[in-house]
């Protein structure tokens, strides 16, 4: 059997199965949904294991460079080799690393996180989570401060009385655009100032800030619609490709089958209601 054609039929079935939810929730949609969740979880786990845990963790704990048949450490490795030879190949893992015993710490933290599956040991998972949260918080604090606060603040320091600039330009720099940027930034920030009641002049200024925010939300909505339509186009392009005779008109047959099944179930449901 030609696997390309088989793959095309599977792809068409799953696409139309997901689309069938637009009609109503149904078992065909559920099959596709569950399949997606299961395959994604399995795929991610495999990729994570073979791209990070095996080469970068085990590869640093038992590198082939330091392999010796006599030591206790590699004696343990030889036992692992007997149990799982594909993960722990004979003679150590050759991924270009040196031996680093410090990597026993992430190994221990990883195992402790997995222990959350057992009720009596689930407190241990907190250590691993605490490390991850702490590391992420530290990393992000710097990144946000540098790129989102300082750099963005710098970008708002713009000349509003520069005679070289044109009065108005739709896209490029101009007095008008700089003025809009300044007003938008100030009023937008003032809207989020909650230590003073939003009334009087302050209320009016913060209301201008709301309008700027609303324009931004409108743009976000427009982009979201554009994105969803793009994805729909992507699926339709594939469905059109797979409806050709070289794929035995997969799209048309699967569509017919699905309409027939959903139509039949709608009719039987109506009869049961009566």
């Amino acid at each position, binding site marked *: 059997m030609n696997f390309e054609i088989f793959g095309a039929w599977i792809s068409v079935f799953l696409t139309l199965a997901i689309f069938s939810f637009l009609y109503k929730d149904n078992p065909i949609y559920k099959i596709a949904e569950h399949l997606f969740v299961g395959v994604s979880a399995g795929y991610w786990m495999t990729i994570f294991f073979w*791209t990070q845990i095996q080469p*970068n963790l085990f590869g640093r704990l038992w590198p082939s460079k330091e392999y010796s048949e006599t030591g206790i450490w590699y004696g343990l490795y030889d036992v692992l080799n007997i149990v799982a030879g594909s993960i722990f190949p004979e003679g150590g893992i050759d*991924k270009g690393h040196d031996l680093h015993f410090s990597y026993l710490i992430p190994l221990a933290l990883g195992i402790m996180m997995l222990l959350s599956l057992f009720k009596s040991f689930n407190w241990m998972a907190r250590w691993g989570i605490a490390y991850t949260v702490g590391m992420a918080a530290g990393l992000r604090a710097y990144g946000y401060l540098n790129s989102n606060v300082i750099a963005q603040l710098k*970008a708002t320091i713009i000349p509003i009385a520069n005679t070289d600039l044109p009065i108005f330009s739709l896209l490029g720099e101009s007095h008008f655009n700089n003025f809009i940027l300044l007003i938008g930034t100030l009023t937008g920030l003032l809207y989020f100032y909650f230590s003073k009641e939003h009334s009087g002049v302050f209320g009016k200024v913060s209301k201008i800030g709301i309008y700027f925010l609303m324009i931004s939300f409108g743009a976000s909505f427009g982009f979201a619609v554009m*994105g969803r*339509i793009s994805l729909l*186009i992507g699926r339709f*392009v594939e469905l059109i490709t797979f409806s050709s005779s070289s794929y035995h008109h997969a799209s048309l047959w699967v569509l017919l089958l699905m309409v027939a099944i959903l139509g039949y179930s709608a009719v039987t449901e109506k009869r049961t209601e009566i």
Partner: protein
Amino acid sequence: MDFIINAILKLGKVDRRWIFLVIAIVVLIPLLYPLALPIRPTATSQQVYDAVETLPKGSKVLLSCEYSPSTKPEIHPMVVSFLRHCFKNKHKIYITCLWPDGQFMAEEALAEVAEKEFDLIYGEDYVLLGFRPGNEAVVKGIVSDLRKLYTIDSRGTKVTEIPMMEGINRFEDFDFLFSASAGYPGTIEWVQYAVDPTDVPMSTGTTSIQVNEVMPYVQAGQVQGILAGMPGAAEYENLIDHPGIGTSGMDAQSVAHLVIVLFIILGNLGYFIERNKEKKNRGY
């Protein structure tokens, strides 16, 4: 007049499944019968193109693939066009992936462009370093010591045995970065942890939904241009004079947008008419 008002009110109460069907039809028809609507590059797409053009021949370009099959229609055409543009200008391409699926997307793009179109040699003209889990920690790792993170490439070859990896030890050894991003981790993490601290120039191509989030970095000059969703991909295809899937999808995109705008107008009209009717009934 009453007939129009009643029709608008009826449309407001129509089953949403009819709207889905209408959208499906208006997307499908232009795909089957293209209208060839004109595509003009926006300033931000032009900026990406110019940034690649100004790089000297043989520049070391890092391409990061952070997308999956679910966002392929938007990002993949950008990656394919970007590879075409870079290979045409004789640049060396290094690919990393912050998303596991990105590796397979990159493999597909390389097979199409590097192998079939340009007949280039793996390891000399391009290399796929592959995926590493860790999100922003991976970006930090590439910035500080790439070789610690990548001792092997996606094919399992030791990085020390790959000719084009000579002299590449950290992020600053690259001349340019292009992030093909569909979310987190992606463009923003590259800006925060790699580009801002090192000043290596960067451009990006993102999904439409991310554009508003990334645009402030473009406006502030932290990112040199952005390819915004499928239209961005189409514009870039137009700029490099090689139409592809992005261009062919733009007719459908434009028609669908017109219909959605029409629905929004009708929906609002229906709302206002109904509100006025209610006010009249209450005697206001």
